[in-house]
């Protein structure tokens, strides 16, 4: 009897959405949003709730809140993870969710998926010490441990495909236009 693969991803819905959006290109234009309020020092609180897609305003079930700060060794108060760590969270979660979706689509049963990320950064950049050093990460390394009903090659292919279709992977590895204005 064939085992039904269930990674909790509704692939049928995703495939149906893909077909529907092929014929309704305007509906595929999404706008994601975040708001941020300064609290004190380097401590800020960002919230996410509303977004736009499928031609109209949408809303998450509840408002999500993210406190970020700098650690005590930066002479701060450590009320939350640093913004650069939040970026690693974005990448990790996008790739991991992608693995689940691709696995579901390929009929691979996942048992566990864990990722560890490391981003190397030289502070001489953001501290303005050395103009040749960039502000951001020199390099980000992602290590996945995947326990699944599949060969090593199939798992590697899964992880490779997840990167290919990851929004955050694209945002980080390719240039993205950012405009900032003051009103």
């Amino acid at each position, binding site marked *: 009897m064939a085992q039904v693969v269930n990674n909790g991803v509704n692939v049928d819905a995703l495939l149906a959405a893909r077909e529907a959006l092929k014929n309704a290109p305007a509906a595929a234009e999404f706008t994601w949003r975040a708001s941020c309020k300064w609290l004190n020092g380097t401590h800020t609180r960002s919230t996410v709730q509303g977004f736009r897609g499928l031609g109209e305003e949408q809303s998450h079930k509840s408002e999500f809140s993210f406190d970020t700060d700098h650690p005590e060794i930066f002479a701060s108060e450590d009320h939350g993870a640093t913004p650069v760590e939040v970026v690693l969270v974005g990448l990790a979660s996008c790739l991991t969710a992608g693995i689940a979706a691709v696995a579901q689509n390929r009929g691979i049963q996942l048992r566990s998926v864990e990722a560890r990320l490391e981003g190397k950064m030289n502070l001489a950049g953001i501290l303005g010490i050395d103009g040749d050093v960039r502000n951001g990460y*020199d*390099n980000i390394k992602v290590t996945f441990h995947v326990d699944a009903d599949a060969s090593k*090659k199939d798992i*590697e*292919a899964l992880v*490779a*495909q997840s*990167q*290919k279709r990851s929004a955050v*992977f*694209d945002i*980080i*590895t*390719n*240039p993205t236009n950012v405009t900032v204005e003051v009103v």
Partner: protein
Amino acid sequence: MTGIERFTTVIIGAGHAGLSMSRVLTEQSIDHVVLERGEVANSWRHERWDSLRLLTPNWLCRLPGHAYEGPDPDGFMNLPDVVNFIAAFAAGTSAPVRTHTTVSSVRAVEDGYQLVTGRGEIRCRSVVLATGANNIPRVPDLHRAVPQSVQCLTTFSYRHPEQLPPGGVLIVGAAATGVQLADEIHRSGRPVTLCVGEHVRLPRSYRGHDVLWWMEHSGVWNQRYDQIEDLERARRLPSPQLVGTPEHSTLELNRLADAGVEIVGRLAAIRDGHALFSGGLANHLALADLKMERLLDAFDAWARDQHVDIDAGPVERFPSTLLPSRSRLSLDLHRGEIRTIVWATGYRPDYGWLQVPVVTPKGDLRHDGGVVTEAPGMYALGLPVLRRRKSTFINGAEADARDLARHLAGFLAGSGGLVSRDPEDAA
């Protein structure tokens, strides 16, 4: 020329595909003419670089009733040989070709199509578009941000390394053309930086046979368009990183890197004169390596199933494509390191003359296996995975031409011409 000429069928394009269709129509006594804007095999003569050789070994170069008969069946024809091969085919079949006749418009009329050419008007009941998919080099919009000090060439204007100024060359695109040019330009003493995005990696030889021997015999190449899961994706695949050399060498990125070519990620943007490359290169390399392995697995599985000795060596696998742990992310085009950019970023078809609404907003022809269903009596040849994976290769023209000629004959007879979807039917 006075008045309007009439033919049953007009074939536009006297490349190997158009000429194949002509030969098949002649066999079936369907009167037709082949209109060619230049000379027979025009694109090969005028729109490719000097050192080009076919990717397909000579024994695979078959057109209807016309095969390679030279001394080197395992070798790869160079450009003059290909032109002669196709010209000999045209002559041998007495193809009714009108050279230097450009079609400036095709439109639908009540009983077929009306064509305006540089030499008069033609009416026909059916028309075959054999102009190919490679009429215009496709250059990304960001080329407008290249500083004036850097010379730009496309693969149409590139002929040989000596036409380039001395100094560094940035090659954008790593499909067959990009890697071939990277190799030859680097060997000319000009440092090359090669931008690599999604690509298809193949070994030239596998277990003692040419990789295209495997493609042909294992059936991969004969896979029909209606049996392919993601056809759109298959049609957009870049040409594989292959070259035809007397040494049967494999053109792989590891070898180029060892020779000193700098491999960087896909050219993603040019900002303030800085070329910015994707940091996702490792993923592109991994995807290509994995895809190649899956293909070799498929070859091995087919080989195991054969009951005759296919004379293949032991199973082999090839080293993964490595890159320096830190590949370059940007290059200042103002600094003078790069004197030339070669855009090896592909081509697109030109349908500007086609006044029939069968072209998508992205500029592709809408067709079902080469039958332009929205325009009765209109057919296409030589487009990617038109009917089979081998459709754009020289040896793929005949089967497609025969299938479509059968449909065309049915159309002319008024039966509506249903093409059989039975794989057995398509020899």
